[in-house]
């Protein structure tokens, strides 16, 4: 099986569209017939990341690679970056403005939740340049 690659643009100026890419990926994974639990884990982690991109990063790009061993999603924005990634990984810590909480998000659960659902998560952030989040979900048993 060769790998499949998909690219999505995430607009940063329209919160109502946040999640379009994640929804498209979920539909794609369903059509490919992947295990429902794999789809669920990737979808939730990706959706959280996409919401973060819109709230904090001003939008960006998502690249999804589907291979024999798993799915890798790379979310890249050119927002302000995260000054303290370790702090951002703490449950309940949030810099989201009040209007975001009124929209049902910004409880400081985004990155911790992504970590919970992903088999692998890395956050590479540079203040003033942007953030790259990589989510990995395995589709096959890992080596012994």
């Amino acid at each position, binding site marked *: 099986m060769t790998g499949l690659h998909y690219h999505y643009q995430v607009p940063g100026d329209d919160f109502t569209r946040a999640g379009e890419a994640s*929804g498209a990926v979920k539909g794609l994974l369903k059509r490919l017939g992947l295990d429902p639990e794999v789809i669920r884990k990737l979808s939730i982690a990706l959706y959280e990341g996409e919401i973060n991109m819109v709230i904090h990063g001003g939008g960006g790009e998502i690249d999804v690679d589907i291979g024999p061993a798993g799915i890798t999603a790379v979310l890249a924005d050119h927002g302000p970056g995260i000054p303290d990634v370790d702090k951002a990984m703490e449950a309940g810590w949030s810099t989201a403005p009040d209007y975001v*909480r009124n929209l049902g*998000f910004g*409880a400081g659960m985004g990155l911790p939740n992504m970590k919970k659902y992903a088999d692998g998560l890395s956050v590479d952030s540079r203040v003033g340049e942007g953030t790259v989040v990589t989510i990995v979900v395995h589709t096959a048993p890992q080596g012994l």
Partner: protein
Amino acid sequence: MTLRDVKTILDADLVFGQDLLNHTVNTACGSDMMSDVLAFVKDQAVLITGLVNQQVIRTAEMMDMVCVVFVRGKQPDQAIVDLARDRNIAVMTTTHRMFTACGLLYQGGLKGGTHIQ
């Protein structure tokens, strides 16, 4: 119970999902914070909320939920209904408040599902 039972118990109006009314559901959750739904909910089929925006439907979609109930008489706009239709997620509205809606469904047999630490 079925979604038809949910509709009856809550005296709800069905906005979308006539074909889904015979779907059996066993669990539900109630929240206005989609962050919490994504973080703490597992295996729930019905989302009860007073939040009205498209992210409610997207959250339900990601969590594999089959029905969203808007409480306090909140009415979804056409874009929300269209998204729910596209994702095949039933949408209902009830004038009950959140606490009452959850209580009625719990009394009727719906459970909270898996407890997540």
